[in-house]
């Protein structure tokens, strides 16, 4: 299945019964799939007039107790950040898939990871955080979409699935999970005040009240940071170079690592699966040097430097603008990283 369609089918199988979205390349196959298949299972598909409206429809449906999602790509995600801040402030669960493309501005429609800062730090105004899952293959995207709904409900917060244009457009064989029915509406959902009325709101006018509310959010973030980091690691301890990469870049890095190992270097790989919470524990192992490969101007490298804490040099390898690195050039970068470090003039 194509990545975008596989994520849509995974969502339906996870019990998602409402989708609101706006067309944008390279993710439009996802809403198109939803338009074809959601009504058949009694779900709601609606094309919104904008990403701004789409995320607010998600807010309304989530508040009404529906298992709901949207999907977009980078410029659309920017428009959704207003709504995400409200969803987080009102503690509403939902899933947002972003199939990242080249930026800034209109950029292009080629694969990119340049929204790392946005998804891990810039989800809107206020103290906002959300779990960010970064699949590297189409089968993993299917698995993580299912997980995303479960985590959203567990913490009553939005969960972001950060894919990139390559993953969205790529076709791979997938094994689909069995379908589960949508969960019943939770007791806090606004389904009509037959008993006590319910209010979903992000307002706390009194500073002390807002502080309590934000501290509850922060405590939830801390619980997530303790329980939910996910990563894969391979041969890092004592390596000449350990590569750090996620998503499509991690997939390329696997080939590059194999190539570099064949040339005699000891090379490891850390693949963050959650971008937030960042899997800092994966960096306890000690290679001689770290090499962070990403399709951005150098964003995840900041988190790696924080996690490594100066115990080894952290180098970066980046391609931007929608250029996807080849395994050969990444293997060359690994070889350079293993060599003598450049001394600033």
């Amino acid at each position: 299945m194509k990545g975008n369609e596989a994520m849509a089918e995974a969502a339906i199988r996870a019990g998602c019964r409402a989708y609101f979205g706006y067309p944008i390349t390279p993710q439009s196959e996802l809403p198109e799939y939803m338009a074809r298949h959601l009504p058949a299972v009694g779900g709601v598909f609606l094309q919104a007039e904008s990403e701004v409206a789409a995320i607010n429809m998600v807010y309304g449906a989530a508040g009404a107790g529906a298992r709901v999602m949207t999907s977009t790509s980078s410029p659309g995600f920017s428009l959704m950040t207003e709504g995400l801040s409200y969803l987080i402030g009102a503690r509403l669960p939902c899933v947002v898939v972003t199939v990242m493309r080249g930026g800034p501005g209109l950029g292009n429609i080629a694969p990119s990871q340049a929204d790392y800062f946005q998804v891990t730090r810039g989800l809107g105004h206020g103290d906002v955080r959300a779990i960010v899952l970064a699949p590297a293959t189409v089968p993993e995207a299917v698995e993580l979409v299912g997980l995303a709904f479960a985590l959203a409900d567990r913490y009553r917060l939005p969960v972001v699935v950060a894919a990139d244009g390559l993953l969205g457009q790529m076709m791979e064989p997938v094994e689909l999970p069995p379908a589960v029915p949508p969960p019943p509406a939770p007791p806090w959902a606004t389904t009509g005040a037959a008993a006590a009325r319910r209010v979903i709101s992000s307002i706390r006018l009194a500073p002390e009240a807002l502080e309590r509310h934000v501290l509850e959010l922060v405590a939830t973030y801390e619980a997530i940071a303790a329980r939910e980091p996910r990563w894969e690691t391979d041969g890092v301890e004592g390596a000449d170079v350990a590569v750090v990469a996620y998503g499509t870049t991690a997939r390329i890095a696997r080939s590059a690592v194999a190539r570099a190992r064949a040339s005699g270097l000891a090379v490891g790989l850390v693949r963050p699966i959650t971008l937030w919470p960042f899997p800092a524990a994966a960096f306890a192992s000690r290679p001689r040097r770290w090499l962070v490969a990403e399709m951005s101007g150098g964003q995840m490298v900041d988190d790696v430097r924080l996690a490594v804490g100066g115990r080894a040099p952290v180098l970066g390898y980046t391609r931007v603008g929608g250029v996807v690195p080849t395994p050969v050039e990444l293997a060359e970068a690994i070889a350079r990283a293993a060599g003598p470090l450049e001394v600033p003039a």
Partner: protein
Amino acid sequence: MIRVAGRPRTLLDVPMHYCPGCTHGIVHRLVAEAIDALGIRERTVGVASVGCSVFIYDYLDVDFQQAAHGRAPAVATGIKRVLPDRVVFTYQGDGDLASIGAAEILHAAARGERLTVIYVNNALYGMTGGQMAPTTLPGMRTTTTPEGRDVRRHGAPLRVAELLAGLDGVAYAAREAVTSPARIHRARRAVEAAFRAQLEDRGLGIVELLSTCPVNWGLDPPEALAWCEAHMVPVFPLGVFKDLRRAQGTVDAGA
């Protein structure tokens, strides 16, 4: 003894935060009366918008969601689409609906969402301190039009009820004022009709209610009511602009 007046069941017995002479209290009561009259309290969900009236959720005994500025029609769409048998209404001011939320109301109306929209027009931004709104009258002084609204520079007031009446998805569109008992009586009928348009699955129902903001207008409450009559009503004519008796979208495509 015959009881001729009382507090509607849906209106909670709590003090309101509104300024003296503000007409939000009257409009809240009209909404509560309509919900009571139609017997829909237990299946109604309100959407509060950004502005002075955001705290309507403290005053009406129904489930509520609070929306981002201007986005109430999108939030309401999300609720209504997943709970089609519930009654969903938005309560929005003129800055919220006619300015920052113009796209959301226009498209909710164009889609014929089965929603009721209570639109309160007081010709400026109340909560932020009296700035120009799309509804500010020509020549009217606000904190951002200190010399008065110059139509050449700031445009002319937006007449929302007429604008939305032109859309196929709208079943009911009216404008009334809450400046006198007679006017309030007409407004009560309009609010109920806007709910009926939704209940009878005919389309979106909107009532625009001309209201006062004595504090930001710099008038005392009786002066504000007189000012609304004298200056707003001529610019925003009262009346029912549309009252479709059957649902849009049921017309034979071959006709």
